[in-house]
């Protein structure tokens, strides 16, 4: 277990940033633990979601942004549904993940890589090309044979396409990506 020096590592601007970007008020959390009790991923988290909320109240930017928990959260919405203080906890987790991505502090590289492969495919074709996404992920992650056992199954069922389906407006979709990237650059 890590010991945190709360006075040294407290970053009050972080609390303000997360509150603004998520539209949630973390100080409402009174640590009842209902979110953690229902979280299907809590066994895999380094910090249970209620502890992430507590760390957030204490402005622990670095600990939170380098945690595995924010990447292993699947946004299943159980925490949000059950929070007695009506905090959208999943939205807080999503916001933390977005900030971690922006600051390039990604503890779960494979998960981010999979998301990126998905978005690349979408940017290139307008729609998701399942086979291409998997292959791109396998190449980039070095897990060359990830899910190779499933290949024959989907092949036999005629469910996999070997070539992408490009939509007519794929450039318009790609433009959403570039406009967003330009805007993000402008705002630092």
């Amino acid at each position, binding site marked *: 277990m890590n010991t945190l020096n709360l006075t040294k590592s407290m970053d009050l601007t972080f609390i303000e940033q997360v509150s603004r970007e998520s539209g949630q008020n973390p100080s409402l959390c009174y640590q009842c633990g209902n979110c953690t009790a229902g979280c*299907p991923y809590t066994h895999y988290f380094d910090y249970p979601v209620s502890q992430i909320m507590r760390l957030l109240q204490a402005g622990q930017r670095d600990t939170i942004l380098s945690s595995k928990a924010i990447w292993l959260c699947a946004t299943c919405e*159980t925490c949000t549904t059950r929070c007695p203080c009506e905090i959208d906890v999943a939205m807080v987790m999503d916001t933390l993940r*977005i900030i971690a991505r922006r600051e390039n502090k990604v503890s779960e590289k494979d998960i981010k890589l999979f*998301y990126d492969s998905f978005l690349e495919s979408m940017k290139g074709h307008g729609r998701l090309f399942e086979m291409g996404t998997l292959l791109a992920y396998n190449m980039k992650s070095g897990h060359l044979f990830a899910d190779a056992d499933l290949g024959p199954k989907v092949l036999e069922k005629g469910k*996999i396409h070997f070539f992408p389906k490009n939509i007519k407006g794929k450039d318009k979709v790609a433009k959403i990506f570039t406009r*967003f990237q330009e805007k993000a650059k402008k705002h630092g």
Partner: protein
Amino acid sequence: MAEKEYAYYAGCSLEGTAVEYDMSMRQVFKVLGVNIREPDDWSCCGSTPAHTVDHVFAAALAARNLTIIEKMGADTVTVPCPSCLSAFKRAHLGMTADESFKNEVNELLDEPYTGGVVPKSTLQVMFEDVGLEAIASKVTHALPGLIVAPYYGCILTRPPEIAQFDDPENPISMDKILEAVGIKVADYAFKMECCGAAFGVPKKDMVNQLTYRVLSMALDAGANCIAVACPLCQQNLDLRQSQVNSTMGSSLTIPILYFSQLVGLTYGLSPKELGIDKLVVSADEIVRSRITLEELAQREAKVKAAEAEAKAAAKSKKVQVKEEDSKTEET
């Protein structure tokens, strides 16, 4: 139901690994007289990966489709996939509630979305717009012996402020639809427990462990089949079932059907047009067990007749014994 036309957004999965969801949904809508029209040149909704990047960006990827749907003159889009649905609902609700969010999203788009399209899941259209009575009226076949665990997945009814449909903890719409077509439904505690979602590729073992719980809880509830409404759940439960078995050292075999496939079977539609052969864990036994309502009535009548006969036989035996008793008393 009044003649209403819906825009129908199938989504990327339904062109690939979930093609049988698309096939069966279209067939069932046809039987029920629900008119659907596919938006021209739709694009991916952005799904989970987009909202890990930015919320305005994610909403823009979804809203491009809402703009297309708005332009085709439809006021409602029905969506089979809960992930697409959630992306659309977040974009639509966010943009109609918050002017500055709307402007930010529209800045990323070629053509702005003005907020005129209500997204609804296909399950919601069936349950609320078509209605149980109309759903039940088209049944021609029965599936005796089948006990289904209805599995809704995480986000079809959650969070309630976004989903605005059914119950966030104990949804019943799929239960009621299956019961309306004569299917027996198990009391299933893991209706909404997460299957592992989109982590299948990067975190296979974790997903297999989570899926195992969902599968074995269905068996514990006495079910011999699971009904789903989400392509990702279906993929984790069906396509990855052999992976689950090798990760967990189990030997589960339980067919995972889309609710639309089950409804279609009771409407007498052919297994081929419902894409039953596309399932990895075979559902052939379910298909073989299918009988017409007349056959079911005959079967039930036979059972009743046999019961009545047995009762009558028991009664006459009693009478005989009584008669014999009184005879012995006389002598």
